[in-house]
């Protein structure tokens, strides 16, 4: 029900792309752990939220017109205090003014380092909903280390996916880095696959990066496209 409501709202505003806020709301409804993300409309509100959130924080542009936030220089990480938050807010406004002069921002806590992975969905013309898992963040495009399964994906298949990627050693612990919580990744994979089967109008979905720790995993950024 909640899922449908979120999607209908997007449809009503004539869009097929969910903003990060909407995408994360939808994921949270399905019990998938996401990094909280609050919308601030002006500089003062941004600063107030940053204090409430606790430093360091992340600021990202929030606009229905901007899909790739980094490409518009709309993402500022690891902001340690009020002054840097103010500067980042103004930069985002300036950088994105050409596309959306009324763009707001989201304020999110800066999450500690972990292994970055990607979990995604595509509605394939031939196979229907397909789930992807691979190395995330900056490695996604360079290494293209991704595996696919047709949804729905069972728990056993989700486990196989996690260990099938070439870079699976990054997950099992290496050179003093601890092994990460692959079980929580499997839960996200099966949850997403269920979502893809139930909600037929999802065309593409990217949870990237998902950061996984020795205990737990979190979706840092997400985008969802409807058919």
């Amino acid at each position, binding site marked *: 029900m909640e899922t449908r409501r979120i999607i209908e709202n997007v449809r009503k505003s004539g869009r097929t792309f969910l903003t990060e806020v909407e995408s994360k709301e939808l994921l949270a409804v399905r019990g998938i752990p996401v990094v909280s993300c609050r919308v601030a409309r002006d500089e003062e509100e941004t600063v107030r939220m940053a204090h409430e959130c606790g430093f360091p924080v992340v600021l990202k542009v929030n606009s229905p017109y901007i899909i790739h936030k980094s490409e518009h220089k709309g993402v500022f990480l690891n902001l340690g205090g009020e002054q840097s938050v103010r500067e980042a807010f103004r930069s985002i406004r300036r950088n994105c003014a050409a596309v959306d002069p009324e763009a707001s921002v989201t304020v999110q806590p800066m999450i500690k380092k972990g292994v970055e992975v*990607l979990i995604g969905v595509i509605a394939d013309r*031939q196979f229907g909903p397909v789930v992807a898992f691979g190395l995330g963040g900056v490695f996604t495009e360079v290494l293209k280390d991704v595996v696919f399964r047709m949804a729905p994906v069972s728990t056993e298949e989700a486990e196989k996916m996690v260990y099938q990627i070439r870079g699976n050693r990054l997950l099992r612990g290496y050179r003093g880095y601890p092994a990460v919580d692959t079980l929580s990744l499997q839960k996200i994979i099966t949850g997403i696959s269920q979502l893809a089967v139930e909600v037929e109008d999802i065309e593409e979905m990217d949870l990237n990066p998902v950061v996984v720790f020795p205990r737990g995993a979190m979706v840092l950024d997400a985008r969802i496209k409807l058919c």
Partner: protein
Amino acid sequence: MTEDDIEVMQKIFNPGSVAVIGATASSDRIGYNLLDSLIYGGYKGKIYPVHPKLKEILGLPVYPSTLDIPERVDLALIALNQRDTVDVLEHCGKLGIKGAVIVAGGFRETGDEGRALEKRLVEITKEYGLKVVGPNTLGIMNLEAGLNATFYPVSLKKGNVSLISQSGGIGFSIIQKCSDEGVGLNKFVGVGNRTVLEISDCLEFLAGDSGTKVIGVFLEGVENARRLVQVAGKVAHRKPVVIYKVGQSNEINEATLTHTGSMAGPYKLFRDIFNQYGVLLAGSVPELVASCKALSLCRLPAGGGLGLFTYTAGPTIVALDRLAGRKISIPGLAPGTVRRIKAILGENLPVVLKNPIDTGGLGTRPGTYGLLVDAALADPNFDLLVTFCCPHKNWPNPTRELIAAHQKSHKPVLTCYISTVKGVEEDREALQQAGIPLYCSPDEAAWGAAALIHYSRRGGALHGNA
């Protein structure tokens, strides 16, 4: 597919009578060759050539139209142009004929007019409950019924491997390779445009077909891959399915906006998803045939421990290369096996005993080969064995020794004789009769072993399918 559909397909492959519509007297035409194939293939049922003017072709009386055939045939082979084909199909439907093979091209692949014709074809089949193979196909075969309903008159060995091909040319390439390899065929379907009968339908039919033990598929691409993989996965629980899919170039869809979308090369998707459903994939015609051959002749091994036995190292290295990345276990030798081999060859061996077992020059001596294979087969770490040898003018081939060793063991044995296909014809016949596939290259022997291990892992009903 409903039970009725299966029944219609059974009739298509086991027809009591066949009409060849568009039969001609000129050997360069399809219609003549369909008729010739039926006769040359040894079809025992009644054949009715149909042509408006001719009286006799290839010694058979000709009927001026389908309406003049004195009985309701089980199968109509239609060798007319696409427009006449559709008209004749309607006549067939009215006469109560349930099965047809349509050879003509010129349907949806040619544009609007062809699409409209194909649409009408579908309507006719729905109205009369007709099942059609094609259009745009080489045809079908059922060696069990002596039925060659293609326009290629050939003589083939009967066996338990059935083939589904989306291409006539590659279908033939697979058939010819099977002949070279001594692989007996059961049924062949050239699915053509798949307008009525889809690849999934053929898989479902062959799954329940008692003459088919193994199914090989050549695949270009289908619209509903979801159904195909689900059906193939289900069938592969009952009998082995091996698929060779073309289109391995990983061209990506630049139009997609997410990372997930842009990384989904079509072959990568296909490979991961068919693996998800446990279907064995082959990367070439030789690999497809090598896999089908092992699955056709051998029982499935109890586990995945692969032993290799040779007197020349190179072929085993090539075989191991072919197995790389397939998670196949090459276990070491049990201490008892080392003792047993030393008892045969002597304590001071010029080679180190491990797996692959390489006996060097000592292994070529007549009499010892069989004892060594016995020892290898008795190793508790091995579930199946591949042996290698290089046939020689002055050294006898170890054929009899292999057969004797295999008879004493319940484990599958595959063998590689480095030779030409012709050079080992007699050995192949004898070995394969005894359930030992003979390959002429280490690559193919490795593919055969990999196929057995793949399906042994799936367990269940497959192990009873000997």
